[in-house]
């Protein structure tokens, strides 16, 4: 099907199953430890061996020699894979990192060898016997050192133009009566998903089958094919359960590439899970950004000039962190200049992490808006309201498809009791605690992409949906189940969902919060075809049938759905493609985040006491799992605001805190009860299902809301994330 005109009424509008807070489809498996993750398949690859990766001990230079003899003679060792016997691994299309040091070393912990042995313990021990000599060269590890010199790179495939001008920013900013001109830094951040990247690889001739943990099957087959030098049709990937990703498992990482390469070398199936301490320096991360935001406004608060200049760094060929994305669309303002510069760094690759661009970009912009509101003596919500726009600020001919931003702000203000906030900083105290409230706006692209699905009706009336969509904790299984049940007019328990297999119809997978809208549109297409086929089989006029209560109805006639398959299963496949509407409409999701913090006046410690998110993301497909997506984003936002920071050793060029003890993420004790509320809306320009994603929206805007609450509590503005106590302790107000 092609979707190129806004959707009218269709079966998904019944909302008998869609929208309901159904428990997760796979809940009983996940809570009993019986969902099988990549490393856990027992019988699929008889005779498998264990691989263990040895990472480079230098950040930049080259291997001058590798002595693997002792490792090869160690008990249980089957083989040692290095660049000398690995063939010449290619590079995929999304990540630029090289999977093996060959012999150049591009970053610390880049894989140097894979030791393959009969047991994990033997492989790990033997890895300690590989002796590597390196020649070290100086590397570039300090982003700030290149702040003056880094160029504006050519536009890449993702992230939009690296420089965009509207009107005359310089003149308007100079003339503005009220201005903010500040620089903010967001550090390198790690995905730190709970399941380490893991893969089992098994070859049959020139075809490879891998049980792995990646978010996008279609990118995975493409990239593994390129890395191995085989056609993507020869790659079969299976990822039904994924222990978190957040962008860090977008496509092929070293576990998958090296399991496949090692299996080819030792001629046995090989399984590899990345040991946690090498993940931080050898997979991707969200790269650090240094962002200068310049806002110019009239005394009425209306923005006349918006400038956002951002610097990030990456390996050669790597992408720019697209921090200005939100700045281009969130607020009105006639004169605009957004620019992104890119430095070269010899650290692990920077790449997509949950809401790439928008999350770190809003961490800067939304503090700047708070600073502007204070200068204007305006309420921060009112400042945002007066700068609302219903058209794309860069292109006034392009309206937003839906834009409930002001409703999010107003609804949130009421629910959070924003009227209790004192606009004067440091005005509320409870004993040793300084109390503050803050808020921030949120925007995240409402993307959608071509997606397919296969639907099978059997004689018992069960409908089985197969698609290569993945569920990384997002709830894909459940929203697919609900969409199919709604379309076919059956109870949810009549639906079987199979995901995460690259032989199933293609979807964009889990990324860019486009998974749920895309796959449900694909399921809509497949179920529409199934309905037509069923109606024909049963001799109905296809234009006038209703699927409800497990039956097909038309006029006075009513037949069991299952009867359509009594002579054999009905199998159909279709896909939804999208045209025109994304050009006609600016499709975005919106939100408002609110936080109340307490700052210990003696120690500077910050405790988050209350948080609320109000989100507008089109139709909410499952009220329970959508809320979980949003509160999960809020937790990650607490981490970004208060603790997450990959600390760089600038002498030796690596992330020092490369494990889950050193890289701090929020734990239970850091998180209060969280509230999330959804604005009731549908977006008929997105798809027939009228739903947009929420997973990344839930993160964008959280950290600056907390930062603004801290300022409201203390009167000390910290512009360098994370806001750890030493950054404001010496400036905290004196205790009476």
């Amino acid at each position, binding site marked *: 099907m092609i979707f190129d005109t806004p959707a009218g009424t269709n079966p998904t509008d019944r909302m008998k199953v869609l929208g309901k807070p159904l428990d997760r489809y796979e809940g009983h498996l996940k809570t*009993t430890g019986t*969902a099988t993750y990549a490393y856990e398949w027992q019988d699929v690859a008889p005779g498998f061996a264990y691989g263990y990766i040895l*990472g480079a001990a230098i950040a930049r230079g080259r291997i001058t020699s590798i002595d693997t003899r002792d490792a090869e*003679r160690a008990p249980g060792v089957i083989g040692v894979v290095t660049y000398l016997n690995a063939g010449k691994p290619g590079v995929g299309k999304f990540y630029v990192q090289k999977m093996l040091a060959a012999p150049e070393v591009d970053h610390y912990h880049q894989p140097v060898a894979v030791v393959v042995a009969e047991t994990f313990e033997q492989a790990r021990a033997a890895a300690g016997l590989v*002796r590597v000599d390196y020649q070290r060269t100086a590397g570039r590890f300090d982003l700030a050192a290149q702040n003056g010199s880094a160029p504006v790179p050519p536009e890449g495939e993702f992230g939009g133009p690296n420089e965009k001008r509207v009107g005359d920013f310089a003149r308007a900013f100079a003339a503005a009566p009220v201005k903010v001109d500040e620089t903010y830094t967001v550090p390198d951040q790690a995905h730190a998903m*709970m399941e380490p990247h893991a893969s089992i690889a098994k070859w049959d001739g020139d075809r490879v089958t891998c049980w792995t943990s990646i978010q996008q099957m279609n990118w995975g087959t493409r990239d593994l094919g390129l890395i191995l030098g085989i056609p993507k049709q020869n790659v079969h990937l299976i990822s039904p359960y994924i*222990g978190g990703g957040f962008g860090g498992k977008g496509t092929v990482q070293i576990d998958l590439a090296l399991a496949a390469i090692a299996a080819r070398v030792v001629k046995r199936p090989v399984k590899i899970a990345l040991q*946690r301490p090498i993940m931080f320096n050898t997979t991707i991360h969200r790269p650090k950004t240094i962002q200068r935001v310049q806002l110019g406004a009239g005394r009425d608060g209306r923005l006349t000039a918006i400038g956002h200049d951002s610097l990030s760094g990456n390996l050669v060929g790597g992408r720019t962190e697209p921090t200005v994305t939100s700045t281009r669309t969130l607020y009105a303002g006639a004169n605009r200049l957004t620019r992104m510069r890119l430095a070269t760094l010899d650290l692990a690759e920077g790449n997509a992490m949950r809401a790439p661009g928008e999350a770190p970009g809003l961490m800067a912009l939304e503090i700047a808006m708070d600073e502007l509101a204070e200068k204007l003596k305006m309420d921060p919500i009112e400042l945002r309201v007066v700068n609302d726009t219903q058209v794309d600020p860069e292109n006034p001919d392009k309206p937003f498809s839906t834009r409930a931003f002001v409703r999010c702000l107003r609804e949130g203000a009421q629910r959070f009791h924003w009227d209790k906030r004192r606009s004067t900083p440091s005005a509320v105290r409870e004993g040793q605690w300084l109390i503050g409230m803050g808020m921030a706006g949120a925007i995240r692209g409402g993307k959608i992409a071509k997606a397919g699905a296969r639907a099978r009706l059997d004689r018992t009336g069960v409908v089985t949906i197969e698609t290569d969509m993945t569920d990384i904790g997002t709830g894909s299984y459940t929203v697919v189940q609900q969409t199919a049940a709604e379309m076919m007019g059956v109870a949810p328990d009549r639906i079987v969902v199979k995901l995460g297999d690259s032989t199933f119809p293609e979807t964009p997978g889990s990324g860019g919060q486009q998974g749920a809208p895309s796959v449900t549109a694909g399921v809509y297409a497949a179920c529409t075809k199934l309905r037509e086929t069923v109606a024909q089989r049963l001799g109905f006029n296809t234009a006038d049938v209703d699927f409800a209560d497990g039956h097909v109805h038309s006029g006075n006639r009513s037949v069991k759905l299952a009867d359509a398959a009594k002579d054999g299963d009905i199998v159909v496949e279709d896909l939804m493609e999208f045209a025109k509407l994304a050009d006609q409409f600016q499709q975005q999701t919106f939100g408002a985040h609110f936080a109340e913090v307490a700052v210990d006046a003696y120690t500077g410690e910050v405790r988050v006491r209350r948080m609320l998110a109000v989100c507008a993301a089109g139709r909410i497909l499952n009220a329970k799992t959508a809320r979980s997506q949003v509160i999960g984003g809020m937790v990650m936002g607490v981490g970004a605001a208060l603790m997450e920071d990959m600390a760089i050793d600038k002498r030796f060029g690596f992330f020092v805190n490369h494990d889950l003890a050193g890289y701090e993420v929020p*734990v239970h004790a850091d998180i209060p*009860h969280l509230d999330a509320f959804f604005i009731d809306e549908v977006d008929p320009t997105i798809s027939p299902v009228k739903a947009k994603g929420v997973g990344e929206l839930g993160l964008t805007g959280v950290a600056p809301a907390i930062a603004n609450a801290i300022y409201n509590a203390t009167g000390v503005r910290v512009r360098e994330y994370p806001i750890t106590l030493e950054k404001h302790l010496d400036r905290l107000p004196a205790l009476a």
Partner: protein
Amino acid sequence: MGSETFQLSRREMLMSSATTAAVSSFASETAEAAPPVKAVPTYKVAMTVNGASQTLTLDPRTTLLDALREHLHLTGTKKGCDHGQCGACTVIVNGERINACLSLAVQHQGDAVTTIEGLGTPERLHPMQAAFVKHDGYQCGYCTPGQICSAVSVLEEIKRGIPSHAQADLMAAPKPTGAEMRERMSGNICRCGAYSNIVDAMADVAGARA
């Protein structure tokens, strides 16, 4: 910047290489043809796992976690960090929760181990498992078995009166309050951020409010 070669002291080299197994400057200090490493002897260990007797012959370097996952194929217990930093491998041994990655299997001769598979099955959920489903106390599911084993143990610890940092009065009997549960659950990381729902699930089981 440029291509100057660093001159490293031996101490600096050690620092830079501390986390990898191979250190270049020692290559020349190692005997050219070092004898191959001897095979590691195996040991027998007998324990009860989820009520069933198990006897395993193991490399002594095998952790309890890997014994469960790789030898008994009880993969419900998850490996998140292998260093006691995340809690995904939490199991209950002789009634106490532990990180299975931090102890060797051979230390558990005669012990009674309960894993997530021993608490309930998809057909017969433990009340805590059912509460996690109801309150959506999980997303990707990878930390979930550890969270549930911890949650079951935490409520038991509170019942047994084991004190915690969250109590105002250490001598008073602890109660399953939100603060108490959050404090005691903080060794189990959930990167998907289901904490608020997990505490709701625990409160439901404890018959209390989060």
